[in-house]
């Protein structure tokens, strides 16, 4: 038995993404029954559109979108997108890694609900979403000049 045999079978959404986007699916991992697909930034938006529009998948519901700041990695941010399919009652997590200074294309055209989530990711983590209709701070005051959820932001005092 090889390691390959021990891995759980990939769900339909992951297989379909691999089939259609081949090398743009950088990795697909499972942990505690949840699947995460690491997507190449260049095709991430296309993938979301595909997941939403595919007849079998219909991942039409954007559950959540947020960003994680990483230090000491070659990438600076990870944008995490969680989508749900009412048809299949399945969820899939997409992750996009952004190099320092890189912007993320907006999801608002595919999922209007992403608008506030993206504003929050911009406000708290400092990810810029290209093409966002109204990229303003949402929780912190407008004249605030830092992004508190970055890891270089101190927990106490500022």
């Amino acid at each position, binding site marked *: 038995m090889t390691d390959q045999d021990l891995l759980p079978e990939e769900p339909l959404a992951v297989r379909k993404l691999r089939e259609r986007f081949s090398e743009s699916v950088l990795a697909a991992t499972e942990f*505690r029954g*949840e699947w995460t697909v690491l997507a190449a930034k260049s095709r991430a938006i296309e993938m979301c559109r595909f997941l939403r529009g595919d007849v079998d998948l219909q991942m039409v*519901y954007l559950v*959540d979108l947020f960003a994680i700041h990483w230090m000491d990695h070659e990438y600076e941010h990870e944008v995490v997108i969680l989508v749900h399919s009412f048809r299949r009652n399945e969820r899939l997590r997409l992750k996009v890694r952004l190099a320092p200074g890189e912007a993320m294309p907006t999801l608002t055209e595919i999922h209007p609900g992403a608008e506030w989530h993206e504003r929050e990711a911009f406000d708290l983590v400092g990810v810029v979403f290209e093409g966002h209709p109204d990229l303003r701070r949402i*929780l*912190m*005051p407008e*004249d605030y000049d830092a992004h508190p959820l970055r890891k270089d932001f101190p*927990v106490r005092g500022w």
Partner: protein
Amino acid sequence: MTARPSPGAAYTVERDDLNPEILTINMGPSHPSTHGVLRLVLKLDGERVVSCVPDLGYLHRGMEKIAENKTYHQFIPYTDRLDYLAPLSTNVAYVLAVEKLMGLTIPPRGQVIRVICCEIARISSHLLWLGTHALDLGAATVFFHTFREREVLYTLIEQLTGARLTTSYTRVGGLACDLPDGWTDGVRRFVNSFPKKVDEFEKLLTRNRIWMDRTQNVGVISKEDAIAYGVSGPNLRAAGVEFDLRKAFPYSSYEQFEFEIPTGTVGDIYDRYLVRMEEMRQATRILDQALRKLPGGPINNESRKVLLPDKTRVLTAMEDLIHQFMLVTEALTPPPGEVYHAVEAPKGEVGFYICSTGGKSPYRLRIRSASFCNLHVLSKIVTGGLVADVVATIASLDPVMGEVDR
């Protein structure tokens, strides 16, 4: 005065000289009908709302940042303060996420007690929603009736957890304590009397001409919009989507309970009202089943590396003393990984995403709150409507700002 472009132009309350008939008014953050510290900047053309810009963040406490500097157990009290109208529900949501990360399960008794907690939280949250919603529309009587019932539940919550609001009842791997003696009798009395009370509330409102006129075909969320904006909970079901996390991804033994998911057809305020009324009945039904099947046995996971051992054993058994020492000094260290766990809270889907790198605190903890997404759809559904309906619509979405601003 020279015109100065400012980043907050959307929020400024100024007269627009090019459109003198457009009146800009500020609503909130301290306004009895915004249910907390929500601020809206409304532009009105007569009685019609031309635009509505919500301004959030007045209750932002940086919960997600705080979590990065706390141990997993230390964060539990903060979850009380997210949806402060149903803290038990958020307590359960958080520990389920940590338990998923650690691969823990808890014994059946603990699971059923958690179900009881969630359903009590649901009913008390819906009672507050109903009372204030009716009050906002001028039906003050309902408020007193719902608060009388809510008081019964808060007394039960106080007996169970020692606090009315800051419950912090759950622990990773179990619960703070077992049910107090005779507590289930109190719940039983409530379960027996409550369905009649719901009928009474309905008598006051459901066929009330004024109530119907103010709520029917007002603040309509279409099925498409509800899905596109990530609306969840009763608001989503009122729009006609039969989706409930208790059925879709059952947790904490919900798969063993029989209940129905009420849905609406129009998606207006009236539908949201009817859905929540039925949810209170279904929650009572779940409580009834939970009391009947409440198993005996332990409430906590048996692994002593997770929960503090019993104090009497700490003082007599060496091994327990070691576990106590390790837990207090080293805290829980879940394995590296990332999980998301969501529960069907009274307001909708409340989920915790935890990214762990193997340390004592989460590397990143993300709170997916129901009210944040539900509130997003507000400006869309009030635009074009009457200003008086804004108040009704906010109340019907049932946002709680502790959860929106986090």
